[in-house]
């Protein structure tokens, strides 16, 4: 029997990696960088976090939950930052084609994740091809203190791990930063019309480097969240699947608004796992059709915003274009 109270929390947990990936990609795109490497960045973020936490859990000492959470987050951000810096160096400094660079990074990132994932699985000598980080995952899934005391409402609103709320705060803050602050105005100017921003005395490369790197780190944490929260600390190769692409689709679906992305990521998350809830005995092919739903919704959204043709809903004008001051 389909129950909203059980479905919705699953959808929300599913949505958080998408949301973080989407916020990260939005930051990239607002600076004019179409970073198709985000799926790879999320993979690298996830495996870097897993490596960090694996080392800590197996270091032999007693497990301190606080340090157990901080270490994977730091290693995850470092891994994602490296990816971000590679992308920046290639596309901003060397002005390489962003699409090609991004796709290469995705291929690289997935391979990187699977390689180190495989290595660690070998190290553990486990019989199943996965790594289980139960202690870290348990610490990661610490819920708010007052959760579980407010009945069904509490179940719906407060039953999630603290990282869920951190993710939502990140999304809200990013939206505020983009729309209300001087930094946001200048960042958007860089993505819309870099020549104008340059003439106004804005350091284009600095804004691009910062927003790409920070965006990548946020996306990387999305990958880590998937492993340590959604998957209960179990890493298995390729399990992350195509969530990275879904995050990029979500950027378009949210029309570059991180605050909208919060709700829409839940919708996407719900659509993504809806196939698990179809009545048993349904044709297997139906399952695949359900899995297509998020992408179908994105296509419909693209058609809708193209038809309405409102300037505010268009991608940043200079998206995908390298900037060189003396070019004509």
């Amino acid at each position, binding site marked *: 029997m389909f129950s909203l109270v059980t479905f919705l929390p699953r959808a929300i947990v599913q949505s958080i990696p998408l949301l973080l990936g989407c916020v990260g990609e939005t930051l990239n795109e607002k600076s004019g960088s179409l970073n198709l490497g985000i799926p790879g960045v999320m993979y690298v973020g996830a495996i870097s976090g897993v490596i960090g936490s694996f080392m800590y859990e197996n270091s032999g000492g007693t497990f301190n939950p606080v340090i157990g959470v901080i270490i994977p987050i730091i290693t995850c951000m470092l891994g994602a930052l490296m990816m971000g810096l590679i992308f920046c160096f290639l596309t901003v400094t060397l002005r390489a084609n962003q699409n090609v660079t991004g796709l290469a990074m995705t291929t690289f990132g997935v391979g990187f994740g699977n390689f180190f994932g495989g290595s660690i699985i070998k190290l553990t000598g486990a019989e199943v091809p996965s790594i289980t980080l139960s202690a870290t995952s348990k610490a990661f899934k610490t819920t708010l203190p007052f959760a579980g005391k407010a009945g069904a409402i509490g179940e719906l609103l407060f039953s999630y791990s603290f990282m869920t709320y951190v993710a939502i705060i990140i999304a809200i803050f990013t939206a505020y*930063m983009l729309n*209300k*602050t*001087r*930094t946001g*105005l*200048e960042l*958007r*100017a860089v993505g*819309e*019309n870099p*020549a*104008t*921003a340059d*003439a*106004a*005395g*804005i350091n284009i490369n600095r804004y691009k480097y910062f927003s790409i790197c920070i965006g990548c780190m946020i996306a990387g944490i999305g990958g880590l969240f998937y492993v340590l929260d959604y998957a209960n600390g179990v890493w298995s190769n390729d399990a992350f699947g195509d969530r990275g692409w879904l995050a990029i689709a979500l950027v378009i679906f949210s029309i570059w608004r991180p605050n909208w992305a919060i709700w829409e990521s839940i919708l996407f998350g719900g659509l993504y796992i809806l196939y698990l809830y179809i009545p048993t005995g349904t044709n297997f092919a139906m399952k695949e059709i359900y899995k297509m739903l998020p992408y179908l919704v994105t296509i419909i959204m693209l058609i809708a915003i193209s038809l309405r043709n409102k*300037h*505010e809903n*268009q991608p940043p*004008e200079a998206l995908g274009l390298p900037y060189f001051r003396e070019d*004509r």
Partner: protein
Amino acid sequence: MRNITKTFGTITANKNVDLDIYRGEILSLLGENGSGKTTLMNMLSGIYFPDEGEIYIDGEPVVISSPKVASDLGIGMIHQHFKLVNVFTAAQNIILGIDQDSENGKKIKGFSKLDVEKASKKIREICDLYGFDVDPDQKVYDMSVSQKQTVEIVKVLYKGADILILDEPTAVLTPQETEKLFAVLRNMREDGKTVVIITHKLHEVEAISDKVAILRKGEYIGTLITKETNAQEMTNMMVGREVKLNIDRPEPHDVKPRIKVKGLTVRSEDGLLKLDDVSFTANTGEVLGIAGISGCGQKELLEAIAGLQPIEKGEIIYVEDDGTETNLAELSDLEIDAKGVSLAFVPEDRLGMGLVASMDLVDNMMLRSFRRKGKIAGFTDRKTPRDLAEKVVEELEVVTPSLETPVRRLSGGNVQKVLVGREIAMNPTVLMSAYAVRGLDINASYIIYDLVNQQKERGVAVIFVGEDLDVLLELSDRILVLCGGKVSGIVDGRTADKNGVGLLMTKLGGEAVG
């Protein structure tokens, strides 16, 4: 500015320029395209850095290393291509990049909330002071060209500039908007601000400026007091030799109808009537000028003849030398070409419709010929277009580093020469050109007029859409005046006077009403 030199690679853009700009005056900076006017001013506004020389402001030596430094020194430049973000409001564009509070000079923190209201208030004050009309909350994409320009000016004033540099501000404005702009500039002069206006239009120099400084090939020639000089003297200084300011108009010979347009009616995509029952004849060996306020159907008329515009009704009859008549109205551009009718079309939008900006000269020449069969089937012939490109560069004196240079890197005049050169090389029987000299300096313009006349002497029917009435009156044998898509009148270019044509442009039939 003293002894300013700037080189780009092997090209010297400015050489030992000395220029004095005084407070409270309007100075015109006059020169041909590529004479280094914009480069010189870019050094004043911090876009470029001079290789040699010093800049003094109020007697103090200054180093202008970036646009920000220039703006701190009170220098603001309004570029030819507006630097505005389309999805931002006027106010957002104006405060972009400002990190100090306008009142107390405190630094605005990057993550604190922007106070757009306060900025809007200050913007309104500036507008009231000088007579601008700007809505701070209007989005730039909703603005007309002249409104965008106003935002640019307010942006510069908002940052507290007292030296304003305007790079060819009138190139994109209608005569009425130009008048409005000049009124605002005069207001600023009254307020003690300095205005430098870069232009190559002589009548604007005469209308607005107190002094005029002339540059030629990157060198400073001299400064004249506008009241004490005249167009001839300025032109001579600008070009460096005597230039005839008269346009030749050879007598037409062997005149016979080439294109007969009958009852042509064209609607735009959104159903607006663009041409309404237009009829006229273009003759061989004659220049038919087309006058009209912009947007009165000139573009549609040429495109309809070229087969690029769907026609609602009417006929376009092409008359061959032996008298055979073909109706072009039913044919597409390719079919017209296949019939052997050679129409040359120099469109208004050079780098959009005429040439491909990112392709080089040879490839652009090929655009006209690639359908013709090469020596080997399936491959294009690149040799002929290359020879043609070489010929055009040589004969029309196109300044280009090489034939492989993308045309967008050429200056406006050279782009136009490439386009006209290609079209003429087809040996056309009809030459249509829209705003052929827009954005070109005097010298380049006269080269184009000469080319037009050469074609006329060859017996080509020339249709010349122009915006400068003086030129039209001197160049054309007959002038067709369009007004709101209708033919307002056809007058003889030799006898018509400017006022009469002007009236025809604004009122159908030219009768003054009321």
